[in-house]
């Protein structure tokens, strides 16, 4: 019988730090286990809260946060605005395709470190001036990574590990400014990078529906949220709508986030605005363009933030400033009357 191994004997190998990037969060799986054992809410009780309350209680200055969705798609915007309103400081961020989310947090001067896969741009919409300034000035310390590396760092944590081997970044400057370690496969000798598990202090995810315990369903692409939900030490869920527990139990195949991962759940209709929420509403490209334009002049931008974030009480207040239900209905039509 064949034995597909190259190495039958004990051997010495080299582990070599590959980059100068810092590891902003502790990858230690045993410490994470202890945290999860002691702090994760295994009690299936109502966890309904409000946005201002969860940001007060669950987001601390200095925390490292992971944001669900994809920049301006299914992004938990209500919580991000509240973080800005409550002037949270020195946050760390997992910047995997961080577009409008990054822009919001930079506008509030909330972050001082970031694992970068993609920042400062809004994809096809162009670059954010304030985001670029924050980074170019050195106000935000960076560790260079990639979308896959970041998603696999979440996955390492979701699996209860302290690292995973990956095949990206090798040979590039991205590697040189990363926090990866060069290693090799125990079976084939192939070269790998190891990336450290990423257990964020807080995960924030916007979903299509959840029950009051926090059991969640998401329609369409998951992006990295399956793993983020499992990796996060504390997890805040905003949902387009509440559904009865019975609704969840009717089709358990659809549950992507079970209640015991969730610390608080809040119903926030249109909670992903001005981003796109699949099957619900399209992104408000006009508003996003207005934001990018406003950034060009500090005075204009201050007014812009005052009008849309600082000057309103809550997310519904923000929605009023952009045209309220009439505008939102236009975006619903744009999302769903696609064959017209």
């Amino acid at each position, binding site marked *: 019988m064949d034995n597909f191994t190259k190495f039958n004997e004990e051997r010495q190998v080299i582990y070599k730090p590959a980059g100068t990037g810092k590891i902003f969060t502790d990858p230690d799986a045993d410490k994470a286990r202890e945290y999860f054992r002691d702090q994760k809410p295994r009690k299936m009780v109502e966890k309904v809260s409000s946005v201002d309350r969860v940001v007060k209680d669950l987001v601390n200055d200095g925390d490292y946060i992971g944001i669900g*969705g*994809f*920049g*301006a*798609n*299914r992004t938990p915007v209500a919580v991000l605005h509240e973080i800005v309103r409550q002037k949270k400081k020195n946050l760390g961020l997992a*910047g*995997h*395709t961080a*577009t409008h989310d990054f822009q919001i947090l930079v506008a509030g001067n909330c972050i001082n470190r970031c694992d*970068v*896969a*993609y*920042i*400062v*741009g809004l*994809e*096809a*919409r162009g*670059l954010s001036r304030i985001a*670029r300034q924050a*980074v*170019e000035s*050195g106000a935000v310390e960076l560790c*260079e990574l*990639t*979308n*896959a*590396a970041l*998603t*696999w760092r979440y996955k390492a944590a979701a699996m209860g590990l302290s690292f995973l081997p*990956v*095949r*990206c*970044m*090798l*040979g*590039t*400057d*991205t590697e040189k400014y990363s926090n990866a370690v*060069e290693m090799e496969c125990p079976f084939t000798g*192939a*070269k*790998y990078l190891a990336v450290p598990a990423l257990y964020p202090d807080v995960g924030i995810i916007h979903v299509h529906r959840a029950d009051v315990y926090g059991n969640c369903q998401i329609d*369409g*692409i*998951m*992006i*990295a949220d*399956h*793993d983020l939900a499992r990796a996060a030490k504390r997890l805040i869920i905003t949902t387009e709508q509440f559904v009865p527990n019975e609704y969840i139990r009717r089709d358990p195949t659809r549950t992507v986030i079970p209640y015991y991962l969730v610390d608080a759940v809040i119903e926030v209709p249109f909670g992903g605005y001005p981003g*796109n*929420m*699949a*099957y619900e509403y*399209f*992104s408000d*490209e006009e508003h996003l363009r207005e934001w990018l334009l406003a950034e060009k002049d500090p005075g204009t931008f201050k007014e812009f933030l005052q009008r849309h974030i600082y000057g309103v009480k809550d997310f519904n207040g923000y929605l009023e400033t952009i045209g309220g239900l009439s505008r939102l209905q236009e975006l619903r039509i744009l*999302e769903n009357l*696609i064959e017209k």
Partner: protein
Amino acid sequence: MKHNDMELMICLASRYLEDNSIVVVGTGAPCAAAMLAQRVYSPRLMIMFEAGGIGPLLPSMPISVGDSRTFYRALAASSMPEVMETCQRGLVDYTFLGGAQIDQYGNINSTMIGTDYKKPKVRLPGSGGANDLASLCWKTMMITPQDPKRFTEKIDFITSPGYLTGPGAREEAGLPPGSGPYKVITNLCVIGFDEETRRMKVESTHPGIEKEKIIENTGFELLWDDNLTISDPPSDEELRCLREEVDPYKYIIGRA
């Protein structure tokens, strides 16, 4: 039919996407090229987006690689790890990248302009999924305007791997053997990569473009294919389809 540079590049790029293969694309010109290929040459080309969309019936150009168009009536609405792992497993044939700088080995910079990482002259978005796709897909393509600042001897930051420092360098770095840059399609010519040196080699020049103009617009020495040809200009059918079906609102082709 007359056409602008963007139309030219998209049409030429679309011809390189073989039928029955898989391509991961971003938004913009690459997505237009893939959609055009599906309509004209490769009806069974399968389009994936890195955020999770697999095989959508794209109703219009996506604005984001994660927006709901990218999985409209799709075969699967999956996840970012799913798509990246499909690439890592070797199932994805093509990808398209963009960038601010590219060198003769096809290494691409989309991270920063300047010499000090901590104080860049210009900070750009970074890899996003570009490094992953350039590392893990079999063939990497690029659609880009050509000028000497962009096509430069030494790029300020290697965000995504081309052939790195030349023959064997990808393999030595641990990247999957057999993968690497494939074509660069510019407003002036179509460039491939020399098998032996892994350096850029011009394969065809666009109609009316002189060799000198290409040399002037390149910051390093180009190789020239022994069988250098003139690029076939966009056909009427390609242009009609691109303008009427793929990008009727001229989001992309209006940029040129």
